[in-house]
């Protein structure tokens, strides 16, 4: 039931080691697939040379020339080819050129190394500034993958009148999702009833994205393509769009060979070629009156989108909408651009553009407080959004929003005032350890931005089974977040049943409808709401057809379902997304209700910096959030704790080192994620404020915890070390040393 910490549905299989992940699926006679990639960032592919000493006749080989349908990955913009053909342009260092497969994994690897690509190199664009400068032009007419402008009022007259105008530039680095299970796909392509049937089993968040990509790749109708989501070893957005690429590659090899194919990336390949969080550069300009009231805000927000558009337009959109943060401001101008570079395309990663722009805004507010000689708490209190205020897109806050109360709760929990006072006394003393405490206040829009939900028009349902239990029919995938359990709780609550009588159907496009992708903190709130409707419809159908009488017990309900299934053969009821009345959005002007609602939070961090080594230890962390009604408190706390860990990692340690457009630290040994010894226990506090639009009052939760940790930790660093140029994450020891030296050397 909603509000109970029900046990994870698939948890028993996970602790027994019997849960079947993609690479665990036994496929007799399967070939091992491998991918040959370009190693230069830009050039023209002239030839593929097959070296000596390899029995090439035993291999299945696939090039662009073999592709039966369209050689473009179906996405927001269809601009990325599955494979580059001879004479075509290579646009990044990991571009797939040739697929090969063989029964012997060791021989396949030897063959991959024996392939030599002849490439005529061209000058490449490897960073944001070169792309903006068109040095050289590599994409369209202006190197822009997407450009968005959001305007409210007119900031221009304000700059000259305002008491204070404060500017800043902030940067964030790429971040690897680092799911522990690397990307993995299996495929079989065989004739069935005289028609070609393409099946892919994989580690993937969005079965219908892959389904759409395979239809386009093979030029097949819906019925001849099947996608099955296996147990997934983490994703965090990293298996949102990329599976359309490697799923297509696996299917091409299976189709050409006529045999089952396994395409399992090792960690080095996964890190080098799959998507990451977009690097960003944000320039902010803010005007304040003499009392510290925010009068105007201008944001120039830029994402490095890599070689193809992929998801950059929608990542940019979320980042742009979140760029003004949680503050009331009459005059706002946001200019957002995703620029093309010759690097592997970044993609979705928990937060989806919002962590980048919110890092800038929340660092900027602390810097503004310092320059205005105001307390960072007081400056925020003066400017917080409240009920009736309008956001940058013109969206009116219709809920009783109390950000000051939320912030006070977090500051009290971490002991902010006492710690500030204590550190002010201890930091000036000799000794290498300096301590600080800082915080951030932020929001995360629930569900897709703008009209996204209307475009997808998700469908989900419930099905009665022969034993009288109920199955959830949805394409939403379980990646550890707890979807199986939360959906069962929502349906059980609607049907007034114990949660044990509800389970999820396997996520197989032959069985479940398109409930949309498993992204954007939308599963609980959006799909859950549809399931609530479907469950109520299911119960009404049972009553109307005389199988069920109300009131009922779980046992009589189960008996009624079993009887109805026996009589009717199949018993399914579906629901579909309907836009709530009153929500308006204009995709062209970027005006209106960007999201149906927001989750709100204040995160506070205490850090200890060692000035001998420049290592930073996060000593304490508090996460206070208002996420509507919490469906499963234990699973929800797990989501918050895990998201905070990733956010701290992004803020302090996780650096993607690039050289000539290629990640060079593509190993777990030298890309550092937090271990158990690196993190404090995170205090998680939920303030529940039921939201009318979600099932049982729930809002989105998955991405929110990624947004706040980096600015909170860096604000704490400033408290520990004083006014350094702390404008970038990750703030690694090297970078922190450099920033300290800037001050000591003047």
């Amino acid at each position: 039931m909603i509000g109970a910490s029900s046990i994870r549905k698939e948890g028993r299989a996970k602790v027994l080691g019997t849960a079947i992940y993609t690479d665990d699926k036994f496929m007799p006679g399967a070939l091992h697939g491998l991918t040959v990639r370009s190693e230069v960032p830009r050039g023209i592919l002239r030839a593929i040379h097959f070296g000596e000493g390899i029995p090439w006749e035993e291999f299945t080989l696939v090039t662009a020339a073999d592709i039966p349908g369209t050689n473009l990955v179906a996405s927001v913009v269809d601009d990325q080819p599955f494979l580059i053909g001879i004479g075509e342009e290579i646009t990044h260092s990991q571009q797939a050129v040739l697929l090969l497969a063989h029964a012997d994994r060791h021989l396949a690897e030897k063959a991959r190394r024996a392939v030599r690509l002849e490439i005529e190199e061209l000058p490449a664009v490897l960073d944001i500034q070169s792309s903006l400068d068109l040095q050289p032009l590599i994409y369209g007419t202006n190197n822009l993958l997407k450009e968005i402008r959001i305007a409210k009022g007119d900031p221009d007259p304000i700059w000259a009148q305002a008491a204070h105008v404060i500017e800043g530039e902030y940067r964030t680095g790429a971040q690897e999702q680092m799911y522990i299970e690397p990307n993995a796909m299996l495929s079989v392509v065989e004739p069935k009833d005289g028609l070609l049937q393409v099946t892919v089993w994989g580690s993937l968040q969005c079965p219908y994205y892959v389904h759409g990509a395979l239809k386009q790749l093979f030029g097949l109708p819906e019925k001849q393509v099947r996608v099955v989501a296996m147990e997934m070893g983490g994703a965090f957005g990293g298996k949102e769009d990329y599976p359309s690429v490697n799923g297509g590659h696996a299917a091409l090899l299976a189709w050409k060979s006529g045999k089952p194919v396994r395409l399992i990336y090792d960690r080095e390949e996964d890190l080098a070629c799959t998507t990451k969080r977009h690097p960003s550069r944000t320039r902010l300009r803010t005007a304040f009156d003499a009392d510290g009231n925010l009068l105007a805000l201008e944001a120039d927000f830029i994402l490095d989108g890599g070689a193809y558009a992929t998801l950059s337009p929608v990542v940019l959109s979320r980042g742009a909408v979140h760029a003004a943060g949680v503050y009331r401001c009459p005059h706002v101008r946001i200019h957002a651009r995703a620029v093309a570079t010759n690097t592997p395309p970044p993609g979705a990663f928990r937060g989806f553009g919002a962590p980048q722009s919110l890092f800038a805004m929340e660092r900027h507010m602390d810097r503004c407080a310092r320059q205005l000689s105001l307390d960072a708490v007081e400056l925020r209190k003066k400017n917080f959004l409240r009920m009736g205020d309008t956001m940058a897109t013109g969206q009116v806050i219709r809920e009783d929003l109390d950000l000051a109360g939320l912030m006070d709760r977090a500051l009290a929990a971490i002991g902010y005032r006492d710690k500030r006072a204590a550190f002010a006394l201890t930091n000036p003393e000799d000794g290498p350890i300096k301590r600080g405490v800082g915080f951030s206040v932020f929001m995360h829009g629930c569900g897709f931005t703008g009209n996204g939900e209307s475009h997808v028009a998700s469908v989900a349902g419930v099905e009665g089974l022969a034993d009288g239990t109920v199955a959830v029919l949805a394409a939403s995938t379980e990646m550890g977040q707890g979807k199986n359990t939360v959906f069962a709780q929502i349906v059980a609550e609607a049907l007034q049943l114990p949660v044990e009588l509800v389970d999820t159907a396997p996520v197989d496009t032959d069985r479940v409808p398109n409930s949309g992708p498993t992204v954007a903190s939308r599963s609980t709130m959006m799909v859950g709401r549809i399931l609530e409707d479907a469950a109520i419809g299911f119960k009404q159908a049972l009553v109307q057809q005389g199988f069920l009488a109300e009131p009922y017990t779980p046992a009589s309900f189960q008996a009624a379902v079993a009887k109805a299934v026996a009589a009717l053969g199949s018993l399914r009821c579906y629901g579909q997304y309907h836009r709530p009345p009153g929500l308006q959005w204009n995709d062209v002007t970027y005006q209106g209700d960007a999201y149906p609602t927001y989750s709100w939070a204040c995160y506070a961090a205490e850090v200890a910096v060692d000035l001998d080594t420049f290592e930073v230890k996060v000593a304490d962390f508090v996460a206070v959030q208002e996420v509507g009604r919490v469906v499963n408190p234990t699973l929800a706390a797990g989501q918050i704790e895990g998201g905070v860990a990733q956010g701290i990692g992004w803020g302090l340690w996780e650096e993607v080192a690039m050289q000539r457009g290629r990640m060079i630290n593509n190993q777990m040994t030298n890309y550092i994620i937090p271990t158990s010894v690196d993190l404090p226990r995170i205090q998680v506090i939920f303030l529940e404020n039921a939201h009318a639009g979600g099932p049982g009052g729930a809002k989105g939760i998955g991405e929110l915890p990624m947004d706040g940790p980096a600015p909170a930790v860096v604000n704490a660093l400033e408290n520990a070390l004083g006014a350094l140029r702390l404008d970038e994450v990750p703030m690694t020891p090297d970078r922190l040393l450099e920033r300290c030296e800037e001050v000591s050397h003047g």
Partner: protein
Amino acid sequence: MADRIDLSLKINGADHHVSVHPFARLLDVLREDLRLTGTKEGCGEGECGACTVLLNGRVVNSCLVPAVQAQGAEVVTVEGLAEGENLSSLQAAFLTHNGAQCGFCTPGMLVSATDLINRCPNPSDDEIRDGLAGNLCRCTGYAKILDAVHSAAEREAAR
């Protein structure tokens, strides 16, 4: 070089004799030859710990152990932790405390935690952190794993 080598070892109490690739790793023998797929591969270089097993009672990353070195050895994998249908105290605690989210690190985490509780029956938070520092988890932030290990240790102590 021989095409295959013969290997005898005891896994979760049962004797196995297999013929394996000369360069096979213990992980390959478990997953491919014996189809004990509970043990996972996350990195292939001994960093993530998803492939952790007990080899003659010691915690190892099975991706770093050449199969030939396991000749005659006793191996315990995640599949060997439960007694029939009954979950071990740690498995039960991981289930009730949400110590497993995506579950991919869980098999290795459970094997390391089993070894930890054997060595240190009443561990502190920091002792658990040290004991599990070789097992990376990207989902939990580790707090629920600490809770699960404490709870299992208390249950074992009460037995």
